[in-house]
């Protein structure tokens, strides 16, 4: 059943929200110990929510477009009175006094929030292994990672724990785990979804987005969470998206460019089986009437380097507030500054510390121009290259991740190998553009491959047209 079908069934009284929830809680009970998708399963709260939805329906009211749908929320998004940890010891015991804007929107739409999902600490990572609460495992093969940093949310959808989940994407943290878990993941245009209540990693890159089993479900969830929010100055002053027509519109006549650098060109390390899937995706789109050609986005090759200056720089500032003064655990010491050092030393994991040091260095007097300044110029170059490409094409295409899901522990000793997981996704964050990952084919290991559809700023609609075609074609094959 799609989400929309379930919603209609509950609204018509053919099904109860409580039944829908119960069956998902059962699945969680069966497999959560093995998968570890959740930092917290909110059983009691969810049951109360579902009861409330059912009584609203019984009163003849319409609780909204997500009536009774269980949703998992990444644990770096604030939920009032419910722990929000970012999978870090430094936020242990902290209870946010407010809901993130998207949490309010989910509730207003009738969704039932089931739990908070695991992530790489403060969303820094590509495998969900950097978590204070242990790694999340890929439901399709539990010896493998689910990707990251939103690995908990991707795994929750892939394992059938919830039909929908919310993630955040700073350099690929929705799209890459979606690809590795065989689900749909969308990073909307920067500013499309309010960041109010999303614990910041890199503010100019962070964006909240949906995970779902299908393109249509992802569209529905994105519609609910999108739209202007006066509490986020960087949010786009536009009403919520309406993507329904995109799902059936097809790609007839659309011009789609395959990014050469990410498909066997300048950037190495993208596996042959992933490239083979990309070829099949091109065929599928072509046979659906799109005009597909290879094209170049030359500065993409510098994206990763620029990202690993800009993101840590912003993170070093965003994470400075975890000083033991106002919230979270405090390690006492003789002086205030010793207390801060001791608290941060004990509270943060290694990857977070590594990025804070990188970022602090990049912003330091005498180094700013060489690192942060130059990276911002690269960012502008990438935007310019994309702008040039979008003069000729409506959409761009690439793999989402260089490989299928890799074994746990495979890259934990080599940060650079881990960083390379985001090589295909990072440029969209630097440009602020939307991109989505749609499952398409399998690798030689039988694990899913994701194809990335990239669109110019604010054109989620056209992006979903291609997403829907890829999905239909993939289902036709398997």
């Amino acid at each position: 059943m799609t989400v929309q079908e379930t919603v209609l069934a509950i609204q018509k009284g053919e099904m109860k929200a409580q039944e829908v929830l119960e069956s998902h809680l059962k699945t969680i009970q069966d497999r959560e110990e093995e998968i570890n998708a959740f930092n917290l399963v909110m059983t009691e709260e969810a049951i109360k929510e579902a009861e409330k939805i059912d009584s609203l329906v019984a009163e003849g009211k319409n609780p909204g477009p997500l009536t009774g749908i269980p949703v998992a929320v990444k644990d770096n998004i604030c939920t009032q009175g419910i722990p929000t940890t970012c999978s870090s010891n430094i936020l242990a015991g902290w209870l946010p006094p407010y809901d993130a804007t998207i949490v309010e929107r989910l509730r207003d739409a009738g969704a039932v929030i089931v739990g908070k999902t695991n992530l790489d600490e403060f969303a820094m990572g590509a495998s969900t292994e950097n978590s204070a609460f242990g790694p999340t495992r890929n439901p399709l093969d539990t010896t493998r990672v689910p990707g990251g940093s939103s690995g908990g949310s991707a795994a929750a959808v892939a394992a059938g724990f919830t039909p929908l989940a919310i993630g955040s994407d700073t350099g690929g943290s929705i799209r890459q785990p979606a690809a590795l878990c065989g689900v749909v993941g969308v990073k909307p245009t920067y500013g499309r979804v309010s960041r109010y209540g999303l614990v910041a990693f890199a503010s100019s890159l962070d964006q909240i987005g949906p995970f779902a089993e299908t393109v249509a479900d992802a569209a529905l969830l994105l519609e609910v969470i999108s739209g202007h929010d006066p509490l986020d100055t960087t949010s786009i002053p536009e009403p919520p998206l309406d993507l329904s027509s995109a799902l059936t519109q097809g790609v007839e006549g659309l011009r789609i460019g395959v990014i050469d650098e990410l498909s066997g060109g300048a950037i190495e390390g993208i596996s042959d089986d992933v490239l083979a899937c990309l070829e099949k995706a091109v065929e599928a789109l072509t046979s659906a009437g799109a005009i597909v050609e290879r094209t170049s986005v030359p500065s993409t090759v510098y994206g990763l380097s620029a990202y690993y200056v800009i993101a840590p720089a912003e993170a070093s500032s965003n994470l400075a507030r975890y000083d033991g003064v106002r919230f979270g655990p405090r390690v006492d010491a003789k002086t205030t500054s010793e207390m801060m050092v001791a608290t941060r030393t004990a509270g943060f994991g290694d990857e977070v510390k590594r990025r804070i040091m990188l970022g602090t260095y990049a912003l330091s007097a005498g180094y700013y121009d060489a690192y942060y300044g130059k990276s911002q110029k690269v960012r502008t170059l990438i935007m310019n290259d994309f702008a040039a490409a979008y003069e000729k094409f409506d959409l761009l295409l690439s793999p989402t991740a260089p490989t299928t899901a890799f074994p746990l522990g495979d890259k934990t000793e080599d940060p650079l190998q881990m960083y390379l997981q985001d090589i295909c996704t990072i440029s969209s964050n630097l440009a602020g553009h939307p991109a989505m990952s749609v499952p398409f084919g399998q690798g030689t290991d039988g694990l899913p491959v994701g194809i990335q559809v990239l669109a110019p700023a604010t054109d989620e609609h056209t992006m979903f047209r291609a997403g829907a075609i890829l999905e239909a074609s993939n289902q036709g094959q398997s």
Partner: protein
Amino acid sequence: MTSKTLDGWEIVIGLEVHAELATATKLFSSAQNVFGGEPNTNIDPVSLGLPGSLPVLNQKAVELAIRVGLALNCRVQRSVFARKNYFYPDMPKAYQISQFDLPINEGGWLELPDGQRIGIERAHLEEDTGKSSHVGGGGRIHEADYSLVDYNRAGVPLIEIVGAPDLRSAEEARSYVSELRSILVAIGASDGKMEEGSMRVDCNVSVRPEGSEEFGTRCEVKNINSLRSLGRAIEYEAQRQVDIITSGQEVEQQTRHWDEADGRTHTLRSKEEAFDYRYFPEPDLVPLDPSPEWITEIQESLPELPRQRRINLAEAAGITPQEATLVVERNLDEFAIAVIEKGADPTRVLVHLENNLADGIGELTTESFAELISLETSGDLSATQAKTVLADLADKGGDPKEIAAHHGFEAMDTSELETLIEGILADYPEDWTAFVEGDLEERKKKSGFFVGQVMKMTKGQADGKVVNDILLHRAES
């Protein structure tokens, strides 16, 4: 430009003034901006820098900042907020949202009452910090048992006004701050209360040999809480630097702390220990680009500034603009002009406003004040009597004539006074001879003595000026 020198040395001063903007809410959130209040009551997720919170710029604060910029003759421009990073418990996010290379106001000037123009380098928007208090150990941070932080002030909008190093004496520095305060109050940007910390002054001081064109090494002095300490701190710091140089050493660039109790400045940190603030553009806010129409609208809504008001009063009262400073500072200039326009003697109007109405005009109206001055001018009331009546008028209002009658004040008949003086002169023949034969100085002394005697006998009802006239007339005849 006048230069005050210290034994052949010139002091060079540049001031950085922080003023809290008079908004209802904070710079980036809807928490209240009010002074005082129970600790940690005017707070919200944004002012506490809670994870996930985001700043939203207060439009009123921007309007007030533009008012300041326009009143200080600055260029109002597109600006960008920046993060100034440093760890301190009263800084909730461990960074302050400020403006760095692109401030909202740049390149203006302020004119002192004496006509000198002092450059304004920039006036930018930023948020205030919370306040720490240290418990135990005499309130000093290093000896304290523990510290408490109040975040009520965190996020309150500030305008930081950076003046050029154009000031040359403690007196000029005080004059600059008090002119700046008058402007901020006049345009409704700030209440300018130094004692409540809503206006704070950091002071850069250096010295150089008189006539030198090069700047000396400067020190920044912090913790100045009043105009008086500003003057004292500058004088102390300039002398300290001159002493260092004349003893053959070099001044080290430092941030220093003014200690009001011992009247000295103390090292806070050296140049090497200066923070690296790692400024970078604030990604949570978009650039601020006020429209030309809005700026024009704000320009047109500005009231007359103290400089123009001094000119207006000077013209009405026949004095120099500088002589009008105090009355304008006390915001009594329009009142003064109205009274003068009713025909009151300008000198008497200004004397009363400057000396006898320190607590404000109260119930005094332009009519009653003009009437009082006319009674004084005509000699119906002596200066002392007028002062008493004025105090009553300010306190309760009413009719000056009735109040005078109530006090039993009547104009003394000149012949009555003559008789009285004649008697006194007879009682003190030696003093009278001294008056008649004395020089100007001696006459002044003796006339004081005789006026005093007359006042004693008339219980202050005589007019001192009339007594003086009688004495002079007698001595000459």
